[in-house]
């Protein structure tokens, strides 16, 4: 539910990083915060447990600058990935304009990705949103782990399992190293803005 303020000529849009627990959603935001510190003047807000797991959400406001005379503010959120936190996950999705699904490439997490994606579809549906229509980008995270000999799912397998019907843009990434983190973000921002422009016409 993006908000357009005609008086201040400002647009606020919400992008949520979704995915299974320990998949790297918070790490994506931490990297963005560090990398784009000149554009992000505030601290990242994180509500987490003592074990450093996301309890409610992380929040990072990102000023995009002016597009067609409007000051565009993007609000980046993550959700808690653990299955038990579904109620809070659903709350964070309220008013979402675009989603990045951060999939875990590790072979042992295969089923968790599928469950989380299905959960995203269900939670979006509670807000009358369709996973096939909302701006969505898939990120296959942790690709760097193959160098350490950890068995990863081939990208083709991930594509087949998660993206065969969705056909969303996808990126191989390493949130920890920063590989393709900015690319993922730029893609979802441009898709979200394009979708807002379509809807506002």
């Amino acid at each position, binding site marked *: *539910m993006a908000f357009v303020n005609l008086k201040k000529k400002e647009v606020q849009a919400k992008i949520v990083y979704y995915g299974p627990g320990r998949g790297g959603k918070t790490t994506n935001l931490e990297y963005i915060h560090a990398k784009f510190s000149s554009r992000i003047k505030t601290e990242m807000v994180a509500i987490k447990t003592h074990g450093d797991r996301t309890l409610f959400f992380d929040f990072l406001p990102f000023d995009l600058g002016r597009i067609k005379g409007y000051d565009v503010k993007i609000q980046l959120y993550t959700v808690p990935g653990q299955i038990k936190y579904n109620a809070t996950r659903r709350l964070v999705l309220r008013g979402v304009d675009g989603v990045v699904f951060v999939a875990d490439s590790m072979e042992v997490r295969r089923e968790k990705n599928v469950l989380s994606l299905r959960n995203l579809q269900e939670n979006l549906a509670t807000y009358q949103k369709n996973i096939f229509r909302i701006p969505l980008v898939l990120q296959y995270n942790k690709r760097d782990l193959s160098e350490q000999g950890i068995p990863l799912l081939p990208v083709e397998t991930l594509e087949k399992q998660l993206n065969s019907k969705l056909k969303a843009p996808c990126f191989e990434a390493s949130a920890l190293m920063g590989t393709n983190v900015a690319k993922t973000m730029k893609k979802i921002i441009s898709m979200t803005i394009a979708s807002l422009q379509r809807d506002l016409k």
Partner: protein
Amino acid sequence: MEYTLGQEHLENIERILQKDFMELGVHCVVLIDMAGNVIASLDNGDMTQDIYSLAALAAGNFGAVSAMAKIVGEEDFSLLFHKGEKENIHFSKIMDDFLLISIFGKETSLGFLRLKVAEANEKIKKIFRS
């Protein structure tokens, strides 16, 4: 579901916030939606807080409280109040989708503020429905 508020609506909302809250001595008043977007904000010039983070947290907080309400068999808790040493925060729900946040100090009486919130609530509802 995007929504747009025109200049006239926003000016009317700001006028209400100015008259009912800022003139009462409230330090800062913010109208947000439940997605955490800031619709209007006014402050007395001394506030240095990050309004956008506050709005995101307030929307999340309110969502969590609503879920708690359902567990104890209430439809909703329509207002919330947090008391601090110097600053206090009052949250009040406006219709289903909006939240009015007032930050105020010791010099403002909570009872009077609640009265003003109730009045402003009705006025803002009218604007959204018009």
